[in-house]
């Protein structure tokens, strides 16, 4: 059965981006980007600030208008769908800045992810509640689930965001700098969480500045500068790639220098 499956049907990528371009006036934030994400892997995007990473993510979740290009999810084009259709497709994301409801508790914030109109009946409700509690458990916030985000540390707030995305039961999880503002231990924990999700078959795409974490966590890296892909492949190879050294690590070196 499995063998037949593998031979007759070449694997359809979870997400495929074809010749994506997003221009703001004269600024080409993303310009001719193509890549595809195969199921069950963790992908990472490296790139200095302003390289178009976040714009790419906004385009993939339909928050900005595409100047050009195609987006396919599970082989189906979806670039004409509104942003609100992403949840239904199975695309969940976190945001670069913390975006939580301040007057709602942690648990209620995560519940927001499951609030579609169709949940009827007790059994369905209980299943949803369980999913939410599991998501909170996974990010380690069970004990503080009744507190409001304002009563939590920044790192914890970021984890609420991740729990909310997980609770949407997505087929693709997009994480926009999930560990910004976290200490090293917290970063390692997030990394472990991502690998745990991968073991369950979840495809993930992560944007991060922490090169070490990206190399340790991701199966496949993309490197971007000025809206274009300059390298992709096995993480260590990508990091060693001369163009990447020049564009990303070079600038990081400069920063390190300035600090010293």
């Amino acid at each position, binding site marked *: 059965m499995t063998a037949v499956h593998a031979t007759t049907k070449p694997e359809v990528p979870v997400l495929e981006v074809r010749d994506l371009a997003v221009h703001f006036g004269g600024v080409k934030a993303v310009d001719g980007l193509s890549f595809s994400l195969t199921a069950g892997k963790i992908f990472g995007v490296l790139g200095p600030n302003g390289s178009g990473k976040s714009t790419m993510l906004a385009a993939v979740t339909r928050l900005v208008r595409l100047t050009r290009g195609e987006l396919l999810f599970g082989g189906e084009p979806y670039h004409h769908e509104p942003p609100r259709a992403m949840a239904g497709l199975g695309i969940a994301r976190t945001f670069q800045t913390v975006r939580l*409801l301040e007057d709602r508790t942690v648990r209620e914030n995560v*519940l*927001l992810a499951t609030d579609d109109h169709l949940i009827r009946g007790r059994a369905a409700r209980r299943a949803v509640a369980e999913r939410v509690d599991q998501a909170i458990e996974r*990010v380690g916030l069970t004990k503080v689930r009744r507190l*409001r985000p304002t009563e939590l540390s920044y790192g914890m707030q970021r984890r609420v965001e991740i729990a909310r995305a997980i609770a949407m039961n997505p087929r693709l999880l997009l994480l926009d700098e999930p560990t910004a503002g976290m200490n090293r231990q917290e970063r390692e924990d997030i990394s472990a969480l991502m690998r745990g999700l991968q073991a369950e078959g979840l495809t993930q795409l992560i944007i991060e500045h922490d090169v070490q974490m990206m190399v340790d966590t991701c199966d496949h890296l993309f490197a971007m500068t000025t809206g274009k892909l300059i390298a992709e492949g096995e993480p260590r190879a990508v990091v060693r790639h001369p163009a990447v050294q020049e564009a990303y690590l070079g600038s990081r070196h400069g920063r390190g220098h300035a600090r010293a």
Partner: protein
Amino acid sequence: MSDWYAANIVLVQSTMTTLLLALSIQLPLRVGVFSFAGVGCYGIGGYAAAICMIRLEMTTWPSIAVGTLLAGAASFLLGLLIQRLNGLYLGMATIAFTLIIAILAVNGGSLTGGAAGLFGALGDLTTGSILAVTLVVVVVFALSETGGLGRRVDAVREDPELAAAMGVDVSRYRRMSFLVSGLVGGLSGALTILLRSSITPAEVNFQLVVLALTVIVVGGFRSWAGALIGSVIFVWLPKALDFVGEWETVVYGVIVVLAALYLPGGVLGLAADLYHRLRSGRRGGETDDEKGAGGADAGPGAVAGREFDQLAVPGEGR
């Protein structure tokens, strides 16, 4: 008791109609739409109901139904027209809408009675029936504040983009808020006018917008209960404020400013915050322990609950 009731029946009734008007302004604010169209709808509902009774000789409740539905329809269409405007622009467009309703009434000829308005539209309304209608509205509003719907409404207000990412149809919520606000505003106008038997264009003015807003700002804009608190305060305050006499309006102004400054959630918001603090405070010890212990009991693969203590330096792992 019955003496008290007989003496205060007008205040009891006007508490309910004020509550309805306040709710019609509150709902759009809860969805993040800065609309005052509810006051214009109050005018539409009032005039429509009065015209039905006087000119068409309809009975009380059908007249009220016509006023309510007409106001709802007008508000819905207005919403379709202006939903793309943001913030203050939308607010001012809806104030303009409200004032245009008054000018239409002035120029409506014999239909609206011109500047003198309409007289003799006394409906057959009992306090009990008004209470019943108000209760229905309040229950619907209360339901919209609980559970998933309540959370989605909060998300649409606080962060529309986030709401969309969660699969919420933001513009549908905004359109619905116009419709419901119009219906409730129209109902409030129809009830008020048929209780009072007359309406003039001068009543549908900016001062009515101020009153409705005042009620919500002081009571709290997040919940129907806030609108109720505000309505009770402002309908009954004049009685309590007898001692300040003619300076009553000055006291109103001071109350609104103080509320806008120190109680962004109104009286109700203050109460809710205190309640939350009390509840989480009771479990406070447990919570602190968990933070300090680094969440030792967290399962494998889970992130430990640890206090954020140092700023991460990008790329420090290398």
